[in-house]
């Protein structure tokens, strides 16, 4: 009887220990997690509309909104990366940026317009208001497929590391710009993001860009967003007809050439 009781107790203890380990593995959590009741917000609940707060970026980093023509500091370009940047900057200065190609992930983040996060069973979905771009981040534990076709928005996977949501993305097609300044992205880009909800209203993301074709070493940008509970997303699709009308009404009135509709799309 006594042996039966002792055996049952040990078996129960082993089972509980197993469940605890299994739960920790499910959470992918090596770090301490914040108690939502104590802080008034759940750091794992990222749903909502987030508006960028560029003024919160730490001083000394590459500023993705330094659009005066001479951004300082510049990323650590390779010679090929610098040449690509200068070509892109010339393209932008000529007004040829008036097209509707998807922005790619990072340029969407660094556009001073909101994005909304939607959470589903297996994905975190971002809807960027500007030009109506969408991004899926898979959260079901999958890896980035080796044979996935490169795309403007790449392919993204995410997992929780304590209270930090870690995103890896790759499979970019090399046709988008990293920022509005025209910093390049090649097909070798591997982008890492570390998302942290710092408080009820503040989201911080540290981006690290690892693209050996264009940059001599990985480099980072830290950016912040504020939660806008009272906002709804607005419609801002890009259509060539609207761009052409804008050209006719504004750019031509200002004696700017606008987009050259007689030429094919940029390569």
């Amino acid at each position, binding site marked *: 009887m006594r042996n039966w009781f002792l055996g049952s107790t040990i078996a129960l203890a082993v089972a509980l220990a197993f469940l605890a380990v299994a739960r920790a593995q499910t959470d992918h959590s090596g770090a301490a997690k914040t108690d939502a009741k104590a802080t008034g917000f759940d750091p794992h609940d990222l749903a909502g509309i987030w508006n960028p707060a560029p003024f919160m970026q730490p001083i000394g980093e590459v500023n993705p909104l330094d659009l005066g023509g001479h951004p300082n500091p510049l990323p650590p370009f390779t010679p090929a990366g610098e040449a690509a940047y200068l070509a892109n900057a010339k393209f932008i200065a000529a007004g040829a940026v008036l097209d509707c190609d998807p922005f790619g992930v990072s340029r969407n983040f660094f556009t001073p*317009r909101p994005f909304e996060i939607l959470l589903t069973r297996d994905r975190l979905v971002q809807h960027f208001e500007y030009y109506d771009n969408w991004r899926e981040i898979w959260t079901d534990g999958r890896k980035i497929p080796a044979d996935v076709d490169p795309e403007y928005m790449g392919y993204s996977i995410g997992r929780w590391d304590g209270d930090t949501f870690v995103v890896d993305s790759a499979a970019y097609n090399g046709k988008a710009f990293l920022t509005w300044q025209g910093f390049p992205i090649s097909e070798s880009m591997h982008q890492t993001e570390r998302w942290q909800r710092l408080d009820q209203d503040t989201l911080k993301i540290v981006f690290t860009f690892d693209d050996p074709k264009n940059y001599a070493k990985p480099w980072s940008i830290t950016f912040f967003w504020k939660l806008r509970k009272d906002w709804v997303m607005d419609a801002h699709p890009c259509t060539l007809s609207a761009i052409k009308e804008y050209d006719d009404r504004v750019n031509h009135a200002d004696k700017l050439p606008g987009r050259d509709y007689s030429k094919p799309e940029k390569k």
Partner: protein
Amino acid sequence: MKSKLIKGFGLIAGLLIVCVPMFAHHGGSDYDIQHPRTLKGTVTEFFWSNPHCQVFLDSKDDSNKVVNWTIETLAPAVLRRAGWSRETLHPGDQITITFVPSKKGTPVGMLRKVVLPDGSELSGGALGEQPQQ
């Protein structure tokens, strides 16, 4: 250290303000943000559309000649959050408009704020969160 931080914040805020016309104008040209202008005039058209709305305004110049100005705004989404709608302006409305003019000297500008016929004022909206003053 504190003053350095404040200086840095000021610099970044300044860069943000500088960047606004660049976003607005798409074509790489920019506006003379150091010399905003204010005009009184009559709305001839209010065009509510992406990528940017436009206010067309007849206003008399120094020689009493009527000039039709093209004043672009930010996108409808940004204006809506600043209290605008597609019905905010109509042809014939008498308004006072503040804008930054094109550096080319053309009658083109980027809207900063407008005083409506009833005396109420609307800003041209903001891109991203702004630092608290």
